[in-house]
């Protein structure tokens, strides 16, 4: 364990010793605080059991499962198109991104590949849902730290992105647009120009949030040095996505793996930050929104003409086999392990969702911090309850 980790552990041990001593002298005892399952900072129904000494956390334990909807079991009794509709609801802020790895896994099993126009549009929608997701994070971050205004800016500008997604797919939150072998429909006319405008607006939004929140000295004093995750600990706990990149690990599945998506046709930077604290995590996400708008802009230039569906039978039966596909989703690495036995639906699906692994670090991370820092750390780790509990 690195130096910072040691310091955090030492603080924890010292706090426990102090607690024991004070308990003997003053006959005081700590307080167990249930943060959640219904608490404004938990984005849903995450419960964190925190043992407090005053305002200092002695230990904290996340308890999830309050929103468990049994998707892995449900997929066993659903056909492939139905599963696509279901997995929309896992990370409900970036729903389209949930469909893509599942569809890619099924396509891998069937040995089909979507036409390049479909791949392009998939990638565009993938990035749009990333923008919609992280935009809301940037606003919500303000609310968690007590600033009321950023969240309204976030909702305002996310609306433009949602309008785009709705215009193209018909579904505002749950597009259900991806099909095995391609896409349900082509883009409606005017989508490209509209998207260019919206991307410009979103870059303006990023500047606004940077002025309003990230440059603010109070915000910095609340987030800098809070909840530091060193590189090795982040890797040990299986963190992924922006949380990992904020710890200085240069790892991005969009760049690092070869998938039938259009990422190899665009030029983009992978943002990393060496600090690993809450500020770094938020900052990396802000920069990633900027980068995503650039990716979308580049992809809009180069959409190839052609069909959007490969030749697949009307009633889909996936041949026997097993496939694992994971993509770089807004929250981190999201993957599906699909086992097929040749039926209309999968035999078994294992869903690896990013948030579940990302919050597994909280017991380690929350030791010795103050109660307000719990909220800062949870906000900066950025989980979505549907993504934890599935």
């Amino acid at each position, binding site marked *: 364990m690195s130096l910072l980790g040691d310091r955090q552990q030492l603080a924890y041990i010292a706090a426990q010793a102090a607690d024991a001593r004070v308990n003997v002298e003053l006959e005081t005892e700590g307080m167990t605080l249930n943060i959640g399952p219904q608490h404004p900072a938990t984005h849903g129904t995450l419960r964190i059991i925190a043992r407090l000494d005053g305002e200092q956390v002695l230990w904290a334990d996340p308890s999830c499962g309050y929103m468990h909807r049994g998707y892995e079991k449900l997929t066993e009794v*659903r*056909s492939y*198109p*139905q599963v696509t*509709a*279901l997995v*929309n609801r896992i990370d409900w802020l970036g729903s389209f991104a949930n469909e893509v790895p599942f569809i890619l896994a099924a396509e891998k099993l069937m040995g089909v590949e979507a036409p390049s*126009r479909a791949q392009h549009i998939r990638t565009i929608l993938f990035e749009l849902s990333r923008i919609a997701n992280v935009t809301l994070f940037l606003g919500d971050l303000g609310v968690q730290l007590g600033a009321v*205004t950023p969240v309204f*800016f976030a909702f*305002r500008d996310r*609306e433009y992105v949602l*309008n785009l997604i*709705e*215009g*193209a*797919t*018909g*579904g*505002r939150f*749950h597009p*259900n647009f991806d099909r095995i072998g391609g896409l*349900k*429909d*082509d*883009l*409606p*006319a*005017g*989508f*490209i120009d509209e998207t260019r405008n919206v991307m410009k607006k979103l870059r303006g939004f990023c500047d*606004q949030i940077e*002025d*309003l*929140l*990230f*440059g*603010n*000295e*109070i*915000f*910095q004093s609340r987030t800098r040095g809070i909840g530091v995750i060193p590189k090795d600990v982040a890797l040990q706990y299986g963190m992924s996505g922006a949380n990992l990149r904020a710890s200085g690990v240069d790892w991005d599945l969009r760049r690092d793996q070869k998938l039938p998506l259009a990422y190899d046709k665009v030029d983009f930077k992978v943002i990393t930050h060496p600090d690993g604290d809450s500020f770094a995590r938020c900052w990396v996400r802000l920069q990633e929104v900027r980068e995503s708008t650039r990716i979308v802009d580049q992809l809009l230039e180069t*959409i*190839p*003409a*052609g*069909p*959007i*569906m490969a030749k697949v039978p009307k009633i889909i039966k996936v041949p026997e086999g097993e496939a694992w596909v994971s993509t770089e989703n807004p929250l981190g690495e999201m993957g599906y392990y699909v086992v097929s036995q040749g039926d209309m639906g999968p035999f078994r699906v294992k869903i690896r969702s990013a948030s579940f692994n990302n919050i597994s670090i909280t017991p380690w991370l929350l030791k010795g911090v103050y109660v307000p820092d719990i909220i800062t750390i949870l906000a900066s780790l950025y989980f979505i309850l549907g993504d934890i509990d599935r």
Partner: protein
Amino acid sequence: MAKVPGLVKGLGVTFGTMMKTFKEGSNTVQYPHVKETPPLRARGVIALHEGNCTSCMLCVRSCPDWCIYIEGHKEMAPPRRAGGAARKVNKLDRFDIDYALCMYCGICVDVCPFDALFWSPEYEYSEPRIADLLHDKTKLGEWMETVPEAPELEVGADKKGKK
């Protein structure tokens, strides 16, 4: 230029937005008085073209949360041409969609082989009682008026594709 403290910049952002709202109006609309038009593809409510439905039950089977209820029976219809044989047709007795259960995935519209189901962008059909969200076939038929034409496709699209 000297660096402006972040606190002052933040105040500037909120003040700027306030002046912008004063001058150019807000980003919101006053909903019951002003309505935004949803895009043509928006999945608002499902409309039923009853004449096309053969009660083949494909939509019922493919619905992920089983919110479509169909009952039908076979009937003898008069022949199409004079002197032809009488035909057997499927008569639809009941076609209900329970919008309290529907999750607007659109699979039923997709699988329908006879183009009997359509999406309409209409969205104002909330009810004070949850049971009233069960739309029967007359109500679903009324939505047919609101179904728009499919939008034009973006350049480079394969025109011969689906309607």
